């Protein structure tokens, strides 16, 4: 099997990070910031958590670059779809 499988990060560390980020998120949501600030902060935190899961739990960090590209690829048409349709209403 590949050497990539032999690399195991400190999973409990990542878990701790995810738990902390979740707690920050829930607190930040009700802190009463201006709406756009709240949205940006929350999306940023969620994105960070998603990246942690993808890179460490799903092992992407140690996979060949081509697989990283494949995994990220659908994000482009997804973003295009949502952004373009949103422009109908802007």
């Amino acid at each position, binding site marked *: 099997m590949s050497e990539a499988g032999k690399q195991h990060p400190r999973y409990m560390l990542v878990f701790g990070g995810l738990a902390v980020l*979740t707690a920050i998120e829930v607190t930040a949501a009700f802190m009463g910031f201006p709406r756009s600030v709240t949205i940006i902060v*929350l999306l940023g935190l*969620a994105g960070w958590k998603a990246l942690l899961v993808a890179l460490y739990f799903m092992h992407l960090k140690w996979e060949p670059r081509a697989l990283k590209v494949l995994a990220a690829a*659908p994000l482009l048409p*997804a973003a295009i779809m949502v952004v373009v349709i949103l422009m109908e*209403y802007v």
Partner: protein
Amino acid sequence: MTSHAATMERGRSPERGLGVPTNKLGMWIFLTSEVMFFTGIIGSYIILRFGASDSWAAPGEVLNVTVTAVNTFILICSSVTMVKAFAAIENGDEKMLRIWLLATAIIGASFVGIQLFEYSELIHHGFLPSSGLYGSTFYSMTGFHGFHVTVGVLCILWVTLKAFRGGYTQENHQGVEVIGLYWHFVDLVWIILFTIVYLI
């Protein structure tokens, strides 16, 4: 060419496009299509909420953020147990594989249970799929996610059963890795969903 060279030619292995084993590659490819499926459902919610000029409930008004935040933590825990299961079998520890897999299945099932409980509370208070756009989008997004989690739990149970029968070894445990990828994906979608639906 000599016959020796010809034999060597015959032993050559297939061209490997990405250096990724076939079953794992297949699962990643499936996950890319799942990204597009959830984009369809969640994207529609984003467009309908932020595009259309309706006013929607503020966070916490209708939905129970506390319970769901705990549920989010629970799902993340199941991702940890899943990855611990994979790490165990990578090190040849078949016993811990079974334990961690079982834990994942149980925690995953709890997530679904709590979700169903939340649904029953909401329905009791009159918040239904037919409750306007909010109801339509909430139930379809969380419903499809919950459906994916349920399928995931069933698959994990199947893998767990195979593990208990000694079906996985240090050399051969692709099934564990592949179902793990699906499970983490489902967790990842929830991370996004929870933020967008419950907090924003």
